[in-house]
């Protein structure tokens, strides 16, 4: 355990020093890795218990559009807009989740219901083109550097915002699945009927997981839009982004705390290097590779990269006996 603490401390120190070490372009990538990583982590938070959502883009879209529209139309600060988006996402998750979990809609049925939800949100954004800009997307009104507007000219400031959020999400993940709770959730993932018989309130636990996941995803979507300063139904909602979330979380390893972030690092590095190497004429190449990788991951390593690494570390004989706690 002390080894882990030390590694975490060193990691954190490196992360805090990162803006001094990295040129602006790489910092830009790291910010995106952190923001997308926390969204993927939120997906994996449900996914690892067998709640596979193909509609997380819906929550991203709700979060991003709520805060941006409130800012553009009424000048409401994102500090209020983001919680509003999160609340809306939680309401949406409950409206879908309660009947689904109550009626035991699981597996691919649940996946397809969430897929429909993602479509509904994306289409509503397109249909509301008078205020949302439809498929053309929208831009939050820029005001330069302002804490109130959560806009920064300097990437370093945004980096620390992203880092703080990402750490908070990892904290929530650890807090929300500690001890008995984790055992309960794992039992639900394995066999709901047995879990119910063992006295676990399956419905309440699943709703809790879904609500937390939706809220984090909405917050991530808002801040991501705030960073990129552009929203469009394709990039923050819809089937494409929903599947991308699923892919990255699985590739990195949804059962590990840092797995989804590794997935974000992997996908962004791949996309960016292909873009730098081949330019935009090679558009689509990254997704071709993702597609093949996703298939290979599911067939050969369903626990993801980090899952495999962790297993290898566990298999390695310990150099010395762990001291008794």
């Amino acid at each position: 355990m002390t080894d882990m603490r030390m590694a975490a401390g060193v990691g954190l120190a490196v992360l805090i020093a990162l803006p001094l070490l990295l040129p602006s372009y790489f910092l830009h990538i790291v910010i995106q890795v952190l923001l997308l990583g926390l969204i993927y982590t939120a997906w994996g938070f449900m996914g690892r218990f067998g709640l596979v959502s193909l509609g997380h883009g819906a929550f991203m879209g709700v979060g991003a559009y709520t805060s941006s529209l409130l800012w553009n139309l009424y000048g409401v600060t994102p500090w209020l807009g983001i919680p509003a988006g999160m609340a809306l996402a939680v309401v949406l998750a409950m409206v879908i989740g309660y009947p689904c979990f109550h009626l035991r809609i699981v597996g691919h049925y649940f996946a397809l219901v969430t897929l429909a939800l993602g479509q509904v949100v994306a289409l509503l954004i397109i249909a509301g083109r008078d205020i949302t800009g439809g498929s053309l997307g929208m831009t939050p009104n820029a005001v330069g550097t302002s804490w109130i507007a959560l806009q920064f000219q300097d990437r370093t400031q945004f980096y620390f915002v992203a880092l703080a959020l990402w750490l908070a999400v990892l904290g929530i993940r650890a807090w929300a699945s500690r001890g008995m709770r984790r055992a309960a959730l794992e039992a639900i993932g394995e066999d709901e009927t047995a879990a119910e018989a063992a006295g676990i309130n399956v419905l309440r636990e699943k709703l809790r997981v879904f609500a937390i996941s939706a809220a984090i995803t909405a917050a991530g979507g808002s801040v991501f839009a705030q960073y990129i300063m552009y929203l469009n139904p394709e990039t923050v909602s819809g089937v494409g982004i929903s599947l991308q979330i699923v892919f990255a979380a699985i590739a990195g390893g949804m059962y590990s705390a840092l797995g989804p972030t590794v997935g974000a690092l992997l996908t962004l590095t791949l996309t960016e290097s292909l873009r730098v190497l081949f330019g935009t004429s090679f558009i689509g190449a990254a997704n071709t590779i993702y597609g093949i990788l996703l298939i290979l991951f599911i067939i050969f390593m369903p626990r993801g990269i980090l899952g495999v690494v962790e297993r290898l570390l566990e298999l390695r004989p310990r150099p010395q006996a762990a001291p008794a706690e």
Partner: protein
Amino acid sequence: MDLYLLEAILNGIMLGGLLALLALGLNLIFGVIDVVWICYAELVMAGMYAIYWLHAVYAWPFLLACVVAIALVALFGLVLHRLIIEPILGSAPINQLLATGGMLFFLQSLATLLFGTDFRNVGIRLPIIELGDIDLSFARLLAFITALVGAAGLYLFLARTYLGTAIRAIAQDREIMGLMGVDQRRIYLITSAIGGGLAGLAACLLVLQYDVHPFIGLTFGPITFMICVLGGLGNMFGGVVAAFVMSQIISIVGYYFSVEISYVLAFVLFIVLILVRPRGILAR
């Protein structure tokens, strides 16, 4: 009655035929193999590109191009099952769905990579039929009739032939049929090929009405899944009924409001219905 409304209803019926055909292949795969091919609409896209290249670029006769495209997509279905589904048949169903999700990504972006994001038209203009004051597109009528013939053909195959009986039997009880001497693996491969072939047939009909582009699958994919689930996954008759219900909603609401709102309503209705009747609208 409002003539334009009547036209919308007629168009809805014809769209229903097409959606029913799309849902049929997916339903067959689900009913027999218990797998959701989330990339099903992308197989249709592949078929549309095949026809486009063979007919519009290499100037093959349209019908020949169609036959070749159907064969190609059928082969693709078979390979998809053999290479991707078979190794993970034993794992959780959601893994199989996600693996075909990888195939969706792959096909979509491969098409972008090879053909760019241009909209390509096969270049066949079919006449408009005038029924009094109502205009009907011949392409849609043809699609409707072919879809019905395809569905009837599939029904006869499943009901009357030995192989069809074996397929239905395995859908009912996987374990016992192995003991009765039915080779499950072979049946799965044949079913996948038929499912692919149906996607190819749908491609032949869609290519007459729509331009092909890499993201066309996203237009038809989600609604096809909704139809299958509404009909009761694996229940083919239910799928056909659901296809007509959905297509009417899309065309009538689309007529009064807008296309997006009609799809929103269709998806919301799906969510509501799945919660009210999780086993499909026809379930007892």
